[in-house]
């Protein structure tokens, strides 16, 4: 058995070099000032109204996108489960394929589509509807988040739902449950691991994105991701950036605890 364990050695080295040390590095930068003196200032800077506002906005937008993703993905996963065999493979294919187009380009394509004189408004006007002005607003960012991360909600939920035995669903109908009762009392409780991992996989990237807000927010909206990114690029205050990153990691720790709580199947359903 010891020799088997040794197979993990390269991985252990990698964990130390690629995960533990880097986190240590962030902690070091985050807890010191420019002159390498210990300080909590960078972490406490989250209390600064500017940062707090950005964080609050990020949490809000991430929550909204997560909920929307869930509302879109859940019925879809159920429909996918119940479609017959040939179509099922095709549908997974259908929803994974877009991920193969570079996500920056796809996001940017929304810029093109949503532009005031863009494609969508052109289509709307063609059928006599008023043009929508959502580019460079919060809605555009939410749309971008939903768009980019939707597959990450669909797949884990579908994975768990597809494993639910058909006969369990039939049993519920057999005992007199209506479709909505089947969904709330059977599907939902049984797909919690998938939901949790889907929520994690949408919420965390939405919370921390700076790309989507940059591309679709028109530079008017600062999320916490933008602030951190700017501390590393534009403002070049790496200590502050690291300090704020430490705060972000809190959210990640919380989500890990959440994942831990729910079945291990949640882990597998990333794929």
């Amino acid at each position, binding site marked *: 058995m010891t020799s088997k364990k040794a197979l993990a050695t390269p991985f252990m080295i990698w964990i130390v070099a690629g995960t533990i040390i880097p986190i240590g590095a962030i902690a070091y930068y985050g807890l010191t000032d420019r002159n390498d003196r210990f300080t909590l200032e960078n972490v406490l800077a989250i209390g600064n109204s500017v940062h707090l506002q950005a964080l609050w906005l990020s949490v809000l937008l991430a929550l909204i996108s997560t909920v929307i993703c869930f509302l879109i993905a859940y019925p879809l996963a159920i429909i996918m489960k119940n479609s017959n065999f040939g179509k099922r493979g095709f549908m997974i294919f259908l929803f994974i394929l877009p991920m193969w187009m570079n996500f920056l380009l796809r996001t940017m394509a929304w810029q093109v589509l949503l532009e005031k004189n863009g494609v969508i408004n052109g289509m709307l006007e063609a059928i006599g509807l008023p043009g929508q002005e959502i580019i460079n607003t919060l809605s555009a960012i939410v749309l971008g988040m939903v768009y980019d991360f939707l597959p990450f909600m669909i797949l884990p939920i579908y994975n768990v739902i597809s494993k639910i035995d058909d*006969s369990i669903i039939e049993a519920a*109908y*057999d*005992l*007199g449950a209506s479709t909505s009762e089947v969904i709330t009392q059977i599907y939902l409780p049984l797909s919690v691991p998938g939901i949790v991992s889907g929520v994690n996989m949408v919420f965390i990237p939405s919370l921390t994105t700076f790309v989507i807000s940059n591309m679709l927010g028109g530079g008017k909206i600062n999320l916490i991701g933008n602030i951190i990114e700017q501390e590393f690029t534009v403002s070049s205050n790496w200590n502050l950036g690291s300090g704020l990153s430490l705060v972000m990691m809190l959210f990640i720790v919380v989500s890990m605890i959440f994942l831990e709580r729910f079945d291990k199947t949640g882990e597998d359903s990333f794929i």
Partner: protein
Amino acid sequence: MKELIKLEHITKNFGNLRVLDDFSLTVHENEFITLLGPSGCGKTTILRILGGFETADEGKIFFEEKDITDLPANKRNLNTVFQKYALFPHMNVKANIAFGLKINGKSQKYIDDKVDYALNLVNLKGFENRSIDKLSGGQQQRIAMARAIVNEPKVLLLDEPLGALDLKLRQEMQYELIRLKKELGITFIYVTHDQEEALTMSDKVIVINDGYIQQMGTPEEIYNEPENAFVADFIGDSNIIGGTMIKDRLVKINGHEFPCIDEGFGNNKLVDVVIRPEDVIVRERGAGKINGTVLTRVFIGVHYEMLIKSEENEYEWLVQCYEKYDIGEKVSLDVIPSNIQIMNKPTSSDEEAIDLDI
């Protein structure tokens, strides 16, 4: 007895595969009816159409003379016990049993009483708060039964409910099911591929193959008077051999004439003859009509089972008897008239295929 369920001219296709073809069946009140057949014969499909999980392509279903063809599963007054139990893994025993009652908005008191009653009935008192994955297969089976019967369905559909249990437990559960059936006084429609199960429990057995009913009758009728080679072969072991019906009550097998009790086949007609292995009488050489040599011999508890090769046409007879004969011993075989079962040669090409298999 009152008619309860009527299936009329049900046809069902899966893609290009026709699973049921013009299938009709009547089920009476308080019957224990078994659909018996090999896997893929369409028996489960019938049950699923009854349960409302599949819709028939053609045909109608009546329940107490009402057309329920288009009624969804959750509106039908019948409940199913699923093959792999299909218990809700996220609920404990009590929540599982109470599920249907809660859905129907019964009072808590009523639910509690019903769950108690059902657990009593299946001999699992005190299991209310166990979680499902802590139960053995037999216990899960009982919970699945309890979950179905608390809803007081008029009909209980059972889809190979004992398939996943080991032999001993299966036999125990067979008696349990018969007892339950008696206590509840409702109709059971039972699906299985296990002929022993079918014969042990049912009032009426329906043998199905390739989407057609092959034979319908009491277990005794099915066993003793199979109507065709498929039924004869599927129910128990049989010797099925070609013969010629010389005239009424006289059949020629292996070149020997045997008196029998069947009539109405016509004269000099080719027929199939079924003789159960336990009905073949083994005698010393010369004391019987057919001469043969013992090929193999296995002791299987009560009796010996032997293959005896006929000298006239090399047919290998399956024989069960209490005396021991040595391998290579030359013997003679005989049958009494009432143990000879005559069947018409199959006419459809389907059944010929089955014949070839035999």
